[in-house]
């Protein structure tokens, strides 16, 4: 019994970590530039495919592929920001939703053109797929996902708290005018924000690929990441992480104890319930409009 629960815990935390990473990327760009990036799922997919390119086609070792992919996709994030999203900065939510969705579609189409729609395999970094201890079997990749997510989140937290760049990002997201007056280049901060956000998406893609395969529709985890962001209120990075883990755990445990059908529903029902009763999430702040 304990064995099952520990397995579920690990599985839940690992899928939750993926949601958390994607949600972190979403919340970051939202806080900085009010853009909710519906293409984040496709950035995740792009990350997985580029990693595929490096490790399978070019036969680079795992860690090199990981690193190079992150760099490349960060560049993609900066490119997208410059070309597609900066012109839309003052646009209403509707426009931004459609624009980001369109960009996502385009990325997915490009991926399909190059790699077709088959499912590819990305190997995990460990030789042993399962750890066994007494009667507990744990998927090593799942543990690796949790570990990486922890490390990444930790690095980000430290970065925001203490580095100059991190503080600059925080001030830009709070008050653009003020930040500009203090000599901070808002444009550079935007680029950096989008780079990091894309990197987070790419990391999520690389980490989840060994578990579910690499295929063009991978990005559909985005909806779950939305749920995670809303739990966190869209304005809290810590909330996004907590939200992601919560969704992952609820999904996994309800899948085992209630039914697999319920597991599919639960995230969306959670979303609707949250939107109805606490649209600003459990951590977020209400924003009123003054007339």
């Amino acid at each position: 019994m304990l064995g099952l629960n520990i397995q579920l815990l690990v599985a839940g935390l690992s899928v939750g970590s993926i949601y958390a990473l994607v949600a972190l990327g979403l919340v970051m760009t939202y806080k900085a530039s009010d853009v909710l990036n519906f293409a984040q799922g496709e950035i995740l997919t792009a990350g997985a495919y580029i990693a595929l390119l490096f490790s399978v086609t070019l036969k680079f070792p795992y860690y090199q592929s990981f690193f190079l992919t992150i760099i490349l996709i960060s560049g993609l994030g900066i490119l997208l920001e410059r070309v597609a999203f900066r012109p839309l900065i003052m646009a209403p939510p509707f426009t931004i939703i459609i624009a980001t969705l369109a960009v996502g579609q385009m990325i997915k189409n490009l991926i399909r053109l190059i790699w077709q729609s088959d499912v590819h395999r990305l190997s995990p970094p460990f030789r042993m797929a399962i750890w066994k201890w007494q009667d507990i079997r744990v998927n090593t990749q799942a543990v690796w996902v949790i570990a990486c997510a922890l490390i990444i989140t930790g690095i980000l937290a430290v970065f925001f708290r203490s580095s100059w760049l991190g503080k600059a990002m925080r001030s830009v997201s709070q008050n653009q005018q003020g930040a500009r007056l203090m000599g901070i280049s808002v444009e550079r901060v935007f680029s950096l924000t989008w780079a990091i956000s894309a990197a987070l998406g790419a990391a999520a893609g690389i980490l989840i690929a060994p578990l579910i395969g690499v295929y063009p529709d991978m990005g559909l985890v985005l909806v779950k990441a939305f749920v995670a962001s809303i739990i966190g209120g869209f304005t809290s990075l810590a909330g996004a992480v907590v939200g992601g883990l919560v969704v992952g755990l609820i999904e996994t445990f309800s899948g085992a104890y209630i039914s697999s059908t319920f597991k599919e529903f639960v995230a969306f029902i959670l979303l609707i319930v949250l939107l109805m009763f606490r649209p600003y999430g459990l951590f977020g702040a209400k924003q009123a409009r003054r007339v």
Partner: protein
Amino acid sequence: MVLREAFDSKIGLLAIVVILLTLPWLLGSFYLYTLSLILVNVIIATGLNLLTGNAGQVSLCSSTFMAIGAYSAMVLNLKFGLTYWLALPLAGLIAAALGFGLGVPALRLRGYYLALATLAFLEIIQIVIQEASTLTGGVRGLLAPRPTFAGFKLNDQSFYYFILVITFLMIYIARNLLNSPLGRAFNAIRNSEAAAQALGISLAQVKVIAFTISAFYAGLAGGLYAPLVGFVDPVEFGLWTSIFHLTMIIVGGLGSLMGSVVGAVVITGLPEWLRGLKEYRDLASGAILLCFLIFMPTGIAGMWGRFHRPLDHISKETEVNGTRS
């Protein structure tokens, strides 16, 4: 625009009607099929534009209401033996009821939150369709035969005429609504919720009505789409189809009835214009969408409307009184 002026003039309208009535005899079956598809999309675009373009409510689940209409019509017809001619309007009403059901919780939501709620609704219905496979055929879908009238199965031409009549009816209703207090209320709540309320307009009522009407249009269209295509495939009613619908109204012109029609014609025909580039379809439509969003946010109809706006007498007036602010 020639089309709009034509619409306004009775003769022009008559000419369009005559053309549309005689086309089946001139077109081969493939083009007739495309034309029928365009008409179905006109209905969806019109309903969606009322909700999003006029009332300003973001919705990502137009394909869901279309699915509800398609499945309802076919299930009522095939599994419950109801004649298609009753099943169709009922399907629209079922979709409308679900639109109402979505509208109520969506009342307090705006912008991103509303979009996400509609997305969640889309996903939930997708799962329901998959799970209720005894009714819906699950992932395998449903066969959707053409309806029969007086013992005869409708062929492509007769079904086309039927769709044509329904399309005209739905456009007529939309035009009347837009020129009525309700239509003005739609535009009011989109422009300024505060001012709309100060004029006695109930945000709640108007939003729910907008969702309900839009869902009815999409549901009806779905009920027409199923026998047209001959098959109900759940894969066709996902997020990408909703984006397709939104593309129609963005390119055509948000908030404009003419825009709905133009957008449906242009975008439905797009796979045709791009026949050789089928693999690049999403890339192309995504690029078109982005271009319109950035450079032509008022769509084709909006651009044309600009040429008709009276600008002269403003500048004279303000020069006299000096009220430039």
